[in-house]
């Protein structure tokens, strides 16, 4: 990008979706569907908008491109269905 490409005002409007914050992660959430009762606490408390619920009733999925691996979902899961697993294992 050179100076000519800048807008006349410093307006930012490109979605952060292109930022691959999943790279920050050292542990990742793994869901045990046998235990999950789809309470969606994992979805509600995710700071990174990285738990995806496609429609009501479906199992939550993790957007690994963006999930930073904080592990809040694993603690807030009402059925302890999420475990955090080391990325390199």
């Amino acid at each position, binding site marked *: 990008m050179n100076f000519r490409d800048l807008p006349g005002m410093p307006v930012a409007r490109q979605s952060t979706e292109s*930022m691959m*914050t999943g790279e920050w992660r050292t542990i990742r959430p793994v869901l045990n569907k046998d235990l999950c009762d789809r309470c969606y606490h994992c979805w509600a408390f995710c700071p990174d*908008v990285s738990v995806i619920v496609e429609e009501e009733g479906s199992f939550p999925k993790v957007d690994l491109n963006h999930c930073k691996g*904080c592990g*809040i979902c694993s*603690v807030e899961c*009402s059925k302890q269905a999420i475990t955090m697993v080391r990325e390199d294992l």
Partner: protein
Amino acid sequence: MTEFQFPLPKEEYMHPGHSACPGCGEPISMRMLLKALGPDTIMNVPAGCCAVIPGVWPAYSLKIPLVDHAFECTGAVSSGIRAALDHFGKDDVTVVGWAGDGGTADIGLQSLSGAVDRGTDMLYVMYDNEAYMNTGNQCSSATPCGANTTTTPGGKSHQRTKKDVMKMMIANGIVYGASLNPAFPEDFMEKVVTAKGIEGPKFLHILSPCPSGWKFDPRNTIKIARLATETGVFPLYEYRNGETIFTKDLKNRKPLEEYLRLQGRFKHLSQADVEGMQRVLDESIQKLLKEE
């Protein structure tokens, strides 16, 4: 724990990929707040974590307009945005000033007071991570007694009580005030929706645990937030028409120690210190219950 099915509106007003630290409490509350307010919202933010989290230019994480400005002027900028919207007949747009505890309780207090005094129709949010976190955990006037920060090293020297901005704002003339905790989403959402429906200056105090500053495992953000209310450290209440109503039970409280021991910022406290703090907390809650 509150049982709820699909507890929040599904619509997202935040993109993934923002710059918050893993486990940060701020984007959880921001996400909930926007779900409650909907798209007809314009927000303004000062310096602080809230200026960094939405992303590095040209990337931007929210799906509402956001206006950046300097540290001490959140209230004033909200007033200006509101005035312009009113002038153009856009009174259906909610104006949100979203600032941290330093930007509110310290450097931004004058501007907030001015905006409340002017009767600006705005939702002012103090997301409270109890220190200057964006500069690396320096003590603010919202830092609790005894907490370790880089400017209260060791923590023991910090014996001031947390500044009660809500009381100041009530005296200043807000039409609605509430404390909000993202660990209680239904209560959180209800209060935001209530506030949105009232015209005038509203002040929301949101507890925002900070894993790096409070020194806890990021996975415990919501757990700690919940304990803050369950122990009585962060009572949940609503202020309206001169009355304060507690929205979560304050009578059956968990021991303060459960909350403190999860956080490295309090690890230097002796058992006697903790007991002393429990006594102070109990006394203050007795007082609160009498006021209700």
